[in-house]
């Protein structure tokens, strides 16, 4: 029999070694860039001088910036609400029909979520094209007025929200469907015995049982939606007159396209407090699992 000294049998050395690449990645390409962003945000446009909080005071003084803040919040909240509602309705509908057909329906509804958003947004862009809009063709066929999808502020905002809902609702659908499937059927049978109708079953059993998933999925989605870039970038590029810019597209415009990297970094960093709060709430929900690993 081979006898190992106790120390060599201990696992931490191997364990730490296996985590080194992950740790390096997080440290070098997430943590360090974050602190570098904080540093960048305190420089002037040429990155030659320290200007303290001047970038932020400059932004605070700009009407456009406050518009971006309002638009981002409006965009995220409205889009997430509709994604959640459509996702829930679709999940519920799929869960109602016989099991053997469910996979097919689910598969069809996931397609928007599978196509890279930048590419599917191209399709929408074409659908919204002022002269050739196929949607407007349909509307006028039914004697309705053509809609200025991307040139009018209201409709442009409507359009980016619509596309975002279209891309994001399937994610909610998947999460809700998984949650619905995890509810034991006996609960519904017991409720039926107690005389509950379809709505009562939904409000007294389904909703409470999937409340946690609804919360987590919604928080996730708020983060992703708040940080959205692709849709606005392809559809409106922030126009008309900056009325559809979000944090990310505005930061791109300022930082990359106009070359004011410190100002762009400042705009991006603005998302951070909101994301941190959301992350904190999510983490509280997920903490049990992390704790079980500790």
């Amino acid at each position, binding site marked *: 029999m081979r006898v190992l000294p106790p120390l060599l049998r201990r696992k931490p050395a191997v364990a730490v070694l296996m985590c080194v690449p992950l740790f390096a990645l997080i440290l070098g390409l997430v943590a360090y860039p974050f602190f570098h962003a904080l540093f960048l945000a305190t420089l002037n446009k040429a990155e030659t001088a320290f200007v303290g909080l001047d970038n932020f005071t400059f932004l605070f003084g700009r009407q456009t910036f406050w518009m971006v803040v309002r638009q981002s919040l409006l965009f995220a909240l409205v889009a997430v609400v509709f994604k959640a509602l459509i996702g829930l309705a679709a999940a519920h509908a799929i869960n109602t029909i016989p099991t053997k057909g469910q996979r097919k329906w689910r598969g069809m509804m996931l397609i928007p979520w599978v196509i890279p*958003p930048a590419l599917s947004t191209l399709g929408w862009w074409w659908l919204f094209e002022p002269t050739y809009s196929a949607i407007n063709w349909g509307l006028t066929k039914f004697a309705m007025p053509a809609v200025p999808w991307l040139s009018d502020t209201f409709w442009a905002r409507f359009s980016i929200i619509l596309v975002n809902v*279209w891309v994001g609702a399937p994610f909610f659908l998947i999460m809700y469907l998984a949650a619905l499937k995890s509810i034991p059927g006996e609960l519904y049978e017991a409720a039926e015995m107690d005389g509950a109708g379809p709505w009562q079953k939904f409000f007294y059993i389904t909703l409470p049982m999937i409340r946690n998933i609804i919360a987590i999925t919604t928080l996730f989605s708020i983060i992703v939606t708040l940080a959205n870039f692709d849709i606005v970038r392809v559809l409106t590029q922030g126009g008309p007159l900056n009325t559809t810019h979000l944090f990310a597209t505005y930061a791109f415009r300022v930082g990359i396209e106009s070359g004011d990297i410190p100002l762009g970094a400042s705009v991006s960093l603005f998302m951070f407090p909101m994301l941190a709060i959301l992350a904190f709430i999510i983490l509280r929900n997920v903490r049990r699992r992390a704790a079980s690993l500790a």
Partner: protein
Amino acid sequence: MTAIPFKTAPSLRSNRRWALIAAYACLGIFVVFFLFPPYYMLVTSLKTNAEIAELASNPWIVTDGVTFGHYEHLLTESSFPRFFLNTTIVTVIVVAITMVISVLAAYSLARLRFWGSGVLATGVFLTYLVPDTLLFIPLFKIVGWLGLLDTYWSLVLVYPTLTVPFCTWIMIGYFGSIPRELDEAALIDGANHLQMLLKVFIPVALPGLIAATIFAFTVAWANFLYPLAYIYSESEMVLTVGTVTTLIKGDVFHWGGLMAGALLAAAPPVILYAFLMDYYIAGLTSGATKG
């Protein structure tokens, strides 16, 4: 048993029937909503330029004969094949890097435990919540310092920040759900850490591995912001940016080619999902619901 006419029985059945009809109606509407844009993209990509430019006819169907000309042009006379190749190279390398990093880390975090492993697991989860749009500007500087600006290697460098955290997270979940008895059996059978990982953990958690791979693949294939910010030369571009920026140039009626490009570029992930959707959904939902 004699049939006792229960008053509620038929109403229960008709209740269910109505619920079913409502469900199908609902699904029908949703499917139309979800599928009409890709359908329209497909229709456009098959139309001749003349038909696309023509305003009178129904845009939703091909009336003037189907043409594959846009696809032909795309594959033979544009940079599209170059984009496709670049995207494939970037994606394959990123997926490989991601899987190695996350499988090793997940095995360690799920099973071995060391000082700070709990904190690191939480850190992984937090990193997953960091969107690409938060750090693209400082990463722009880092990519520049490393001399990777305007090459697709910049993407190989930065994409793992988007893929590794989630993949690690779901692999932790899958590895964690493997009963400890199985490691112990393998330990008694004489497996060392590497054998345990390669011969027991990875095969047993294969569904999770597939889910993580698809996730990494999708993210790397679909990202738009990083290549838009870091790559300017057509020869280095990947599909998303190449399709959006370069195919729009040129003649006015580029729509057919644009839609054909978008569809072709979207095809690999769509095909992948068609075959492996169940794994991916299982991985995704377990990652978020096991918490």
